[in-house]
């Protein structure tokens, strides 16, 4: 009996040992499984975060973007042109002065960005290069805060320009000299960026293309507006004598003269010299220049061939005449706010290009000046299509040692007098 009981107990003990062993194996399965889950979690949470967060269909991107406190855009006197409103979770971009639109552009989650909003996006959104800082911010879950940007634009003057262009299609540019600060960049027709999301489809469909900033992105046949530049080059190549350029008559005589004395290569060389094959260096979306090509030489000399330019390119080229032959680099952004103080916006330090000799430039200034107005100016009417004639105007003031440069282009305006009126009025307003 005792024996039997002992063997029974021994059996139970044996079973206990078996069970313990099985439990230990089971424990390993549990630990292994949970470690596998942890490894997969590390895979998604560490190794694949870039992929997951970067996917376009991740709704968090929109949510994050809605929380970014974008920097303000202000004019040269710190009048606010763009700022953020709305709630902490749902920031809304506001444009208190829509006349600044061609420069400021727009920022829309649905339709992207344009203008300064596009070109300085990373500064305005506060994307920092230091990824540790960014990491720390995301660890603390602080909203991304962008930096303010100060433009060279004078919003009062800009409003005047918009008023002068009212009802027309075209562009107006005013540039300070010799520093190159762009005071006005107007483009007509324009639109209210506050209403962009509601009206985007109509804006895209509209024939007049209000979304295009004509001053920096509009391509126009130059017509005779390039004549002073061509003349300067021809003078330096000694294809002309100083007597050929004594007065304003160059604007009328020069095309025929150059047609006789030049070949296509000379023309292309002259364009190249004034940098018309390069996009202006400016922190703003600009139109890529067209190829320097001549299809019909006679028309090309008169600027009515396939070669086209933007008003901004013309302004940069014209600045060489008023700046002793050195082309000025245009500026649109004067400063960026870094921790509550303005820091000058650093542009490229590349040396400015000396395109013509100082005395050549002076000579042309003299021949194109209107002494009673103390102004240097020239204008052009250009056949841009079978039915359309555009007009250009370039003015520099004062005639000696100019401090302001204005460029006007009007579409479908055969009378260059109108361009001149607008340009002169704008120069007057700039001086006041």
């Amino acid at each position, binding site marked *: 009996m005792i024996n039997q009981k002992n063997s029974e107990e021994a059996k139970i003990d044996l079973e206990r040992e078996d069970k313990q062993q099985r439990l230990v194996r089971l424990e390993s399965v549990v630990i292994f499984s949970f470690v596998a889950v942890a490894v997969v979690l590390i895979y998604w949470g*560490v190794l694949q975060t870039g992929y997951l967060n970067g996917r376009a*269909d991740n709704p968090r991107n929109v949510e994050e973007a809605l929380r970014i406190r974008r920097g303000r855009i202000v004019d040269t006197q710190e009048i606010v042109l763009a700022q953020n409103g709305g709630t902490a979770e749902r920031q809304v971009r506001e444009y208190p002065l829509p006349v600044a639109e061609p420069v400021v552009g727009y920022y829309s989650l649905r339709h992207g960005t344009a203008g300064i909003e596009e070109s300085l996006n990373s500064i305005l959104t506060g994307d920092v290069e230091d990824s540790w800082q960014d990491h720390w911010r995301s660890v603390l879950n602080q909203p991304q805060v962008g930096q303010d940007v100060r433009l060279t634009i004078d919003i009062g003057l800009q409003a005047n320009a918009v008023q002068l262009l009212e009802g027309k299609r075209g562009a107006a540019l005013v540039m300070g000299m010799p520093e190159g600060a762009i005071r006005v960049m107007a483009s007509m027709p324009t639109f209210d960026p506050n209403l962009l999301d509601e009206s985007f489809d109509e804006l895209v469909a509209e024939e007049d293309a209000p979304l295009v900033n004509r001053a920096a992105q509009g391509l126009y046949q130059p017509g005779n507006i390039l004549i002073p530049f061509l003349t300067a080059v021809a003078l330096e190549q000694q294809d002309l004598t100083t007597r050929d350029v004594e007065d304003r008559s160059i604007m009328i005589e020069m095309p025929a003269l150059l047609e006789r004395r030049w070949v296509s290569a000379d023309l292309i060389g002259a364009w190249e010299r004034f940098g018309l094959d390069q996009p202006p260096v400016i922190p703003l979306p600009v139109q890529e220049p067209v190829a320097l090509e001549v299809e019909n030489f006679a028309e090309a000399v008169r600027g009515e061939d396939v070669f086209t330019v933007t008003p901004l390119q013309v302004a940069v080229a014209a600045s060489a005449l008023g700046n002793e032959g050195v082309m000025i680099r245009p500026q649109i952004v004067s400063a960026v706010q870094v921790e509550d103080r303005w820091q000058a916006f650093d542009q490229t330090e590349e040396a400015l290009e000396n395109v013509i000799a100082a005395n050549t430039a002076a000579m042309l200034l003299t021949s194109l000046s209107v002494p009673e107005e103390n102004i240097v100016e020239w204008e052009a009417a250009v056949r841009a299509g079978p039915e359309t004639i555009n007009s250009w105007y370039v003015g520099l003031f004062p005639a000696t040692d100019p401090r302001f440069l204005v460029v006007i282009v009007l579409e479908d305006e055969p009378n260059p007098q109108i361009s001149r009126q607008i340009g002169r009025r704008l120069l007057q307003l700039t001086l006041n």
Partner: protein
Amino acid sequence: MGKKIVMNWIRQHYFDRLQLLLLGLAIAFVLNTGITWSLVSTGEISWQVIGIFTLWLGGILGAFFYLRWTRPYQDPLLFPLAALLMGWGMWLVARLAPNFMWRQVIWVILALAVLVVAAVVPARFRPLRKYPYTWMFGGLLLLAATLVFGVNPSGGGARLWLKIPFLPVFFQPSELLKILFIIFLASYFSQQESLKRLQRPGRRFGRLPYLAPLFLVWGFCVTILVWQRDLGAATIFFLVFLTLVYLATGDLQYVGGGILLLLAAGILAYFLFDLVALRIDTWINPWPEADNRAFQIVQSLYALGAGGVFGKGIGLGFPQYIPVVHSDFAFAAIGEEWGLIGTIFVISCFMVLILRGFRIAFQTKWPFDFYLAAGISVMFFAQTLLIMGGVSRLLPLTGVTLPFVSYGGSSLLISSLMLGLLIYLSDRSRREDQFDLHD
């Protein structure tokens, strides 16, 4: 003998301290989470949050002290873990589905009551052990009732709930079936064990006692799968059964065969049921259908990716983009707002809970207790693994809740019931250790 008394005293003393410390940490964490949530959502510490926390704290402390008094030898880790997970889950529901917040608070209080009852009342489970078939049959009847009267409180989807008459409350019989299933198996295997012990040496029973129920349970799970489309429950029941067979026999052939049967059922289901096909397809490659059929799992992965290591902080992420985040995807929400630190902490909590469960099973003196403790632990394991693996795409997605954390009354009550039983078992085996002194 004297040495054993001293050792027991030291251990008890140490355990008491440890338990208090852990509970204190759990309370601190839940309080901190509640305050943070309140500040994030309303900018102030709202009365609502204070009220919820007070209710939880009252429930926790009441249950804790009562259990300490009635079950002094209980495992020190289980209760603080459950308290922590319940508190965490409560804020998670408040954050993810504010409409359900008060309901969840009430469920938590009820669950604590169930936990205490389960830990205190069972007098060796006599009625449970005596009538295993009756209980199981009752459970199956309830389940069958859902086939006829089943509803889904949220409208569409699988109809796994029964409406409780006169109350705005729904109950999920498959949750109740979980514990009945474990009790049934524990009862069955312990009976087999005593039968085996009686057998004369040399005579073999053969495999019939395990093979027959294997097919029976498989058939039962397939039925659940086919009729209810409840992929998660079917898998969990089958895994629990297989593990208990393994613990009883140590024979891996059963496990291998069982897994083959499971795979066979899975493959069949893949071709027969759209839901299963969807889950498998989106598990293998969710990306082509990220905004369509695989939306849920992809959003879950986005949540994990957005959370990174440290998480966004409660209320600061966007887990709401995951459909039904508050029940099936609570773990992904933790991944987004508490990051890897949070998810790995949750994994650790469940791992500790399950391993303690195995330890309790090992310490039990009676076969029934052994299978009960092991079965409960395996149930927790299967459930947590399926949902944590599911939301992280380690496994195909099956809609089960994360015990204690997810929203859902039935799940919370049954999880608490199972944990209460574990606490009871841990107390009893160590109490019996004490009795050993007098042998």
